[in-house]
């Protein structure tokens, strides 16, 4: 079974440009999460989808970040316009809904974003 896949694996863009990251969760996983690690910092939660709905977006840094999950399958995370401090590794994770709690989160390999 395919794991969580992210595209692209690397992206280098100039400040002010737009970048869209994509995440394909494991098939059947209703929960989809975005995390990121900026240089020298810890992995931080960004937001959580349950199917196509945003369950929790408390970690989104500002309104330059827009996440979508149309149809409850894959998700995109758009950064517009990108700033230097957005550089880092963006991880996507998915998990299966449980009756009491969800299964463990499966992470993708991440997208390394560099804004120059």
């Amino acid at each position, binding site marked *: 079974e395919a794991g969580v896949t992210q595209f692209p694996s690397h992206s280098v863009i100039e400040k002010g440009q737009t970048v869209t990251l994509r995440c394909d969760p494991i098939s059947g996983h209703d929960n989809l999460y975005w995390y990121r690690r900026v240089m020298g910092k810890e992995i931080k*939660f960004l937001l959580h989808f349950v199917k196509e709905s945003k369950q929790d977006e408390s970690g989104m840094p500002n309104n330059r970040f827009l996440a979508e999950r149309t149809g409850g399958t894959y998700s995109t995370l758009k950064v517009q316009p990108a700033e230097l401090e957005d550089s880092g590794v963006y991880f996507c994770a998915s998990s299966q809904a449980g009756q009491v709690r*969800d299964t463990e989160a499966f992470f993708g*390999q991440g997208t390394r974003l560099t804004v120059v």
Partner: protein
Amino acid sequence: LAKTTQPISMDSYEGQEVNITCSHNNIATNDYITWYQQFPSQGPRFIIQGYKTKVTNEVASLFIPADRKSSTLSLPRVSLSDTAVYYCLVGPSGGYNKLIFGAGTRLAVHP
């Protein structure tokens, strides 16, 4: 959400058992303790999860004392490929995987 404290780094040799202890003094009643492993250029990978006492799987064992204020991840007979960062987390919050990552423990296994 409960904060965790674990060693910044550890060194070991191939074939040894490695124990990484994590403190989580403010763990909530509904929190589970979960350990993830991360290799360079990869996303974190789930290792083991427990609520109390001892849990064992094909990869590791997790020991949790009665007060649940700490936990110990035990890796039996480590190999070079176990060199990675190990994260101790408590949650998931509300049943979801809104995970709070700390700095983790960087384990280096030497020949």
